[in-house]
């Protein structure tokens, strides 16, 4: 049954009763539309509801309210073994008493595939994850990365409509994780299956996904491609959670279509800003500026959005310098790429140095004050 979306969550609510008897709302009226063939991530910290949402798609939990739709079909209380989706678990959940081959073949045996079909399909799946030589081994004889690839092959061999991945790279070391991120992305593009990926690592989400859903406390805060989430966050939480940002409280002074003038009381000054959502004069807002967007100079550059600050700390990262300045009593972070190739310390910014910071108006975002 074809549908516009591979998976849809319509007004899904999931409530749990804790052992103490309290009600816990893990998923709070979530709506999501995941398109066919896309790499979709749910990003958030622990307890935000992303894993619970994934488990509801898989069928391990059932929504308290609302429903899950897979390829347009409502799933209701359908058990996992009847759903056309497969899961890669964070702990791999391999069958320890079976060989790698048997693990991967399991799903096909449940479909009552013939022996020869199983042999060829398992062979291809193992080739795809580059584990063909390990088919006789047991999971306990494999490394973490290899086990993870078995779990992947085991789920993919069934060619499901949707593949669900629950923080599959969490247990791997950094180097291996970065390798696997690229491999997974390439695999997804090669196979063309819809991937729904759960992670708390924003770099992972930004690197791999076509679209990201940022979640917090059971709610979806924003959905969009990485660039949109990063450059046009719609809430302070998203601006803060993804990357780094400076925040200043202010009041809207004037609005002109997508532009606005915001008064920052701490500086008794106005900033030229860009609106992310509608606002009106007099609204209390929060202004967000990302540190890498700030232009640093020793002399004032422009009339608007140019403020003087004093360096109180700086961190040398190698490729970048992170500066922490005091601007009129407010702490401001500003990053700059190191174009200096000399070792002369006087060419680097020093403590107590006075610098001028320019905030380009298109990077000064007006966000609702929560």
């Amino acid at each position: 049954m074809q549908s516009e979306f591979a998976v849809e969550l319509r007004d899904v609510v999931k409530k749990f009763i804790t052992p103490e008897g309290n009600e816990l709302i893990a998923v709070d009226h979530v709506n999501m539309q995941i398109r066919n063939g896309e790499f979709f991530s749910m990003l958030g910290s622990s307890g935000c509801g992303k894993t619970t949402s994934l488990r509801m798609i898989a069928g391990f939990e059932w929504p308290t309210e609302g429903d899950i739709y897979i390829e347009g079909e409502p799933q209701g209380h359908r058990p996992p073994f009847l759903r056309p989706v497969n899961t890669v678990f964070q702990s791999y959940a391999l069958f320890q008493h079976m060989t790698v081959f048997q693990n991967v073949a399991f799903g096909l045996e449940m479909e009552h595939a013939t022996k020869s079909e199983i042999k060829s399909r398992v062979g291809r799946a193992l080739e795809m994850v580059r584990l063909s030589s390990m088919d006789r081994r047991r999971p306990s004889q494999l490394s973490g990365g290899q086990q993870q690839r078995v779990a992947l092959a085991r789920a993919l061999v069934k060619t499901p409509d949707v593949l669900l991945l629950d923080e599959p790279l969490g247990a791997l070391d950094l180097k291996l994780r970065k390798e696997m991120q690229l491999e997974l992305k390439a695999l997804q593009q090669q196979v063309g299956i819809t991937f729904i990926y759960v992670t708390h690592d924003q770099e992972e989400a930004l690197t791999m996904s076509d679209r990201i859903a940022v979640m917090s406390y059971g709610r979806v805060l924003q959905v969009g491609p990485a660039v949109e989430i990063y450059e046009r966050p719609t809430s302070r939480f998203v601006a803060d959670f993804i990357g780094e940002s400076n925040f200043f409280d202010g009041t809207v002074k004037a609005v002109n279509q997508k532009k606005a003038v915001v008064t920052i009381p701490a500086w008794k000054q106005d900033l030229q800003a860009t609106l992310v959502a509608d606002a009106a004069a007099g609204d209390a807002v929060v202004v967000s500026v990302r540190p890498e967007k700030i232009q640093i100079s020793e002399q004032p550059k422009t009339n608007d959005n140019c403020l003087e600050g004093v360096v109180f700390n700086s961190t040398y990262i190698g490729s970048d310098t992170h500066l922490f300045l005091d601007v009129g009593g407010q702490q401001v972070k500003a990053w700059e790429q190191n174009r200096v190739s000399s070792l002369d310390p006087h060419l680097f910014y020093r403590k107590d140095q006075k610098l001028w910071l320019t905030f380009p108006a298109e990077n000064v975002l007006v966000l609702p004050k929560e």
Partner: protein
Amino acid sequence: MASSAAVPTDVKRPSLLRLIRENKVAQGLTLIGPANVYLVLFMVVPLILVGILSFLSRGEYGQVLFQFNLSNYTRLLDPIYGRILLYSLGVGVATTVLSLLIGYPLAYYIARAPARQRSLLLFLVLVPFWTNFIIRIYAWIMILRAGGFLDTVVQWLHISDQPLHLLYTPTAVMIGMVYEFLPFMILPLFTSLEKIENAVLEAAADLGAPPYRVFLRVTLPLSIPGMIAGTILVFIPAMGMFVIPDLMGGAKTILIGNVIRNQFLTARDWPFGAAASMILMVLTMVFTFYYARRAGLSEELVV
């Protein structure tokens, strides 16, 4: 006190305590030492004594004569003992199988129960052990005898107005045996089942396995170590058990355990009893190892 030959204070004399503190081997030996001594003194040595005893003879008045011969073993070749041994084997196997059939669902239920309930349920399984073994058997006798508790209930429910005459039958023996050995089967099974990661069962369902296939293909194979441990804990003692058949089976049920007991306590033919014990031990070991090898002893033994 006059100073004796001066001992240089910077040279420490080796002492036993220092040896233990520094040497890993010594530490190991200290830890297992007492248990090993106990086992050697009270198990290995008596076993050897019994083994030697089985080759000796009985005197006219029941004393032991140091005349080595094989007559005890040849006596055991008599078909009557063959039948008794076979019967004992049957009881051992039946007890084990029944304990497995009844114990597995119970262990499964406890393993899947929420954590707080689990402790309570395990406690309930273990509570009978707080009561003396013989007293528990007598309780069963009270229940099963003609006119006893079971008969009263059956009559009250109008299922039958005749007494059931369960006591002093093989059925009563089986009831007593399974009752006694069930916890020994439940506990290792529970340990094995509890170790199974929930995610593994979810993965099986996710891959298309309906609940009964998850059980047959995943749960059951992963619980085999528990089944082996439970079987060993039940089968070995059940084979040699004589108290329950004695008290609940009456004179009609004679097992090898009864034979051994009679030889030592009644007939006072210790060498013959010793020989029967050795045969029992060998038979039990043979069956256990064969079974364990078949079911996959390569898995870690869970007790």
